[in-house]
């Protein structure tokens, strides 16, 4: 702020100086406040609005009394008791499950989406436009709306293949991958089209197979969009409650969303410290990933992804 003001002063000094510079400086300063300065106060207000809940959760997690009422005095006491207490719960098992399920779903989504986008971008087969439109329409219908059928179908599959039935993490990942083609193909398709086709052609002349072109040439060139899709798929799996709740039955198999909901839905006051500490730990990987990749994500967002 002060720097800008100094710049204004310098500018006025250089501009002329026959008039007493005092008047003009104060006028400029007033104009600066009217046009730019107030925006910093506005920004402070927005930051308070955006960050207060996050500061509060950090403070509550450090409050050793651990109850909702005791957490309202921000940073009145600091201890890591709540974090240590997480060790006596299933928290770390849920954490591991969530990371595992999220990572596999993300990798799967990237491979499926990239393969789909490659096919649509590089091959001209009939039915191509129709299947692209079909994908666009199907991805509008949320899978979660069909959870009754999903539940009953998994019960039936479980009788044949227990590893794919209710309470199986593989089944949950498979459910997440069902949307991978529809949701990500469009995002990647546009990006694949920006890679010049001449690269494929020259490789083909050198005798590369289409699989070699896909894995060795195209995939390294589209790494940014792969990272974005992986992150979005990871966050989607990370934040899913309804499918995880239906599929994962036993407590040690839960994800963070299912387990932490259980903590505070009934006993809001007693497990508040535990929840806030868990929430801080759970949010860290997503927060770090998101903020470090945000430049790319903004591009992805404007291309059509929406937070659910």
């Amino acid at each position, binding site marked *: 702020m002060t720097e800008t003001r100094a710049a204004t002063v310098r500018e006025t000094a250089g501009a002329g100086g026959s008039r007493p510079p005092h008047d003009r400086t104060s006028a400029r300063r007033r104009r600066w406040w009217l046009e730019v300065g107030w925006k910093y106060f506005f920004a402070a207000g*927005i930051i308070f609005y955006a960050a207060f809940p996050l500061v509060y959760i950090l403070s509550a997690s450090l409050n050793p009394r651990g109850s909702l009422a005791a957490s309202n005095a921000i940073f009145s006491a600091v201890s890591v008791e709540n974090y240590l207490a997480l060790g006596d719960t299933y928290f770390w098992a849920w954490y591991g499950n969530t990371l595992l399920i999220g990572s596999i779903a993300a990798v799967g989504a990237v491979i499926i989406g990239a393969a789909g986008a490659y096919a649509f971008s590089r091959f001209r087969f009939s039915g191509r436009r129709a299947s692209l439109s079909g994908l666009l329409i199907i991805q509008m219908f949320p899978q979660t709306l069909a959870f009754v*059928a*999903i539940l*009953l179908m998994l019960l039936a599959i479980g009788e044949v*293949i227990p590893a794919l039935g209710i309470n199986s993490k593989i089944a949950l990942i498979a459910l997440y991958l069902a949307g991978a083609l529809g949701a990500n193909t469009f995002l990647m398709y546009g990006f694949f089209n920006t890679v010049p086709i001449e690269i494929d052609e020259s490789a083909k002349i050198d005798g590369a*197979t289409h699989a070699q072109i896909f894995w060795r040439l195209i995939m390294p060139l589209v790494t940014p969009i792969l990272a974005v899709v992986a992150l979005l798929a990871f966050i989607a799996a990370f934040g899913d*409650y309804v499918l995880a709740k239906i599929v994962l039955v036993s407590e040690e198999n839960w994800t963070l969303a299912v387990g932490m909901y259980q903590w*505070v839905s009934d006993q809001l006051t007693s497990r508040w410290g535990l929840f806030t500490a868990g929430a801080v730990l759970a949010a860290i990987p997503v927060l770090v990933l998101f903020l470090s990749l945000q430049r790319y994500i903004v591009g992805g967002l404007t291309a*059509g992804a929406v*937070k659910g």
Partner: protein
Amino acid sequence: MSVQHDEAQDLETTSGPPSTSRRGGPSAESHSRGWRGLGWGFLVKLAIMAVINALGLLALISAFRVESWWIFGITLALLVIADIVYFTKKALPLKYLLPGLAFLFVFQIFVFGYTAYIAFTNYGTGHAGSMEQAVDAALIQGERRVEGSPTYPLSIVERLGGELGFAINDGGEVLVGTENEPLSSVDVPAASGAPSDVPGWTVVDRGRLLSDQELQAAVVDLRVPVSEDPNDGAIRTRDGSSGAVYTSTLVWDEEAQTITDTVSGTVYAPNDRGSFVAEDGSSLPTGWYVNVGFDNFLAIFTDPALAEALLIVTIWTFAFALLSVVLPFALGLLFALVFNDPRIRARKFLRVLFILPYAFPAFLSALLFRGMFNAEFGVINDLFFFGADINWLGDPWLARGAVLFVNVWLSFPYWFLVCTGALQSLPSDTLEAADIDGAGKFRRFRSIILPLLLVSTAPLAIASFAVGFNNFTVIYIFNDGGPVIPGAPYRLGSTDLLITAIFDIAGISGGVANYGLASALSILVFIVIGLIAAIVFRQTRRLENF
């Protein structure tokens, strides 16, 4: 899929559009290339396909054994298609699309179809299986120990995989059976007392039985049928060392398809609603599911208590979806306009702080706000309302306001980012021209910026409306869709969206389940989304030049 397949083949043989030439030249060349391709890539493919085929065969055998023909058919179809696609030179695009398509078809499209099927049944609590299962369940419920029946020395046996069974000593002959396999003789001479050695089975140690609570419960619940005929009864045990025959007071007459209560003499006959009903109108608790036509759809509109609650839910769903686009959009646009100013320093840093709510996982935010809005101990009443006792989550209108507040907090960063991007891509010459023509700030915004901005953000807004329409996570996690609408069946609440209402009606969070009704509601929501999708499609079609 077969259509694509054939057409891809056509492309290969006919010279067709110029793009085909890209895929390979004369066939002789591709032949030699195929040989060169027999390197690592081919071996990896072979290994993966071997694993997939092995797993598929296991699934087929397993499905055959439990006579699950649907799963058998779908697995077989997928397996055959996979082998054709990956081991022939045809259908090149399918090689890339098949993994995604397989997941899409089984776990999304099939599931949609299955939802439509369930919507026309009375599947749910009390109607959860076939008629045969309902008969078995009824007979089990009516089971009593047969007066004066003999007791057999009994031991509990276990098979690989933890399946429990009983082995009894029937006058020198050892009989073994499980829940699913009626008693049958094993050819071992038995001494007196409980069998101690049964071939193919492990006899469960008595000490373990006494110390393992779960095992005890399983043993008390275990019933081993005496024979294939359910009327013969089953062996049960109370102490784990002796068993007796229990038979049902109900008798199943397969010829007449009726169940008779031998104590009272009442005859229960099946009706077309999937229940066994006596002449006096009483019915057995367990039924089976049947096709009920459009009854579920009719119930949505005609059952007064349900229709009234669902109307509240539907209106709120539309209001919520609309407001959760408009409010964050307005806020995000305002912030974007204010901070799209090159004179402000550290804009990048400010942007990171503004989008913090967006980077925080939504389910955690919803749980966090659930605590913060708590009437008694919550920080919002405590700090911002001077310790007042405002019942945010218990009053219908306050709860609606609170959930909107949470959703605005969650999604204004998204619109801030989108609007910032859109503002930066506005044509500067148009804005300059307006400036020269003497347009004021507001005029410029209303006549130029907003219309141009809406063109690029409208598809996103419609997509966002569809997401808000089905925003399960925020609604359910924040307040369970509560507070409960008084008099409504199925725990429907004032902030419930249609999707959380379906969850409550399906009884997944506890209570009575009505899968049929829940699926019927899903179908209606599908139709609404279909309409939205059609609008989006129209909007975006001209933008896409694929």
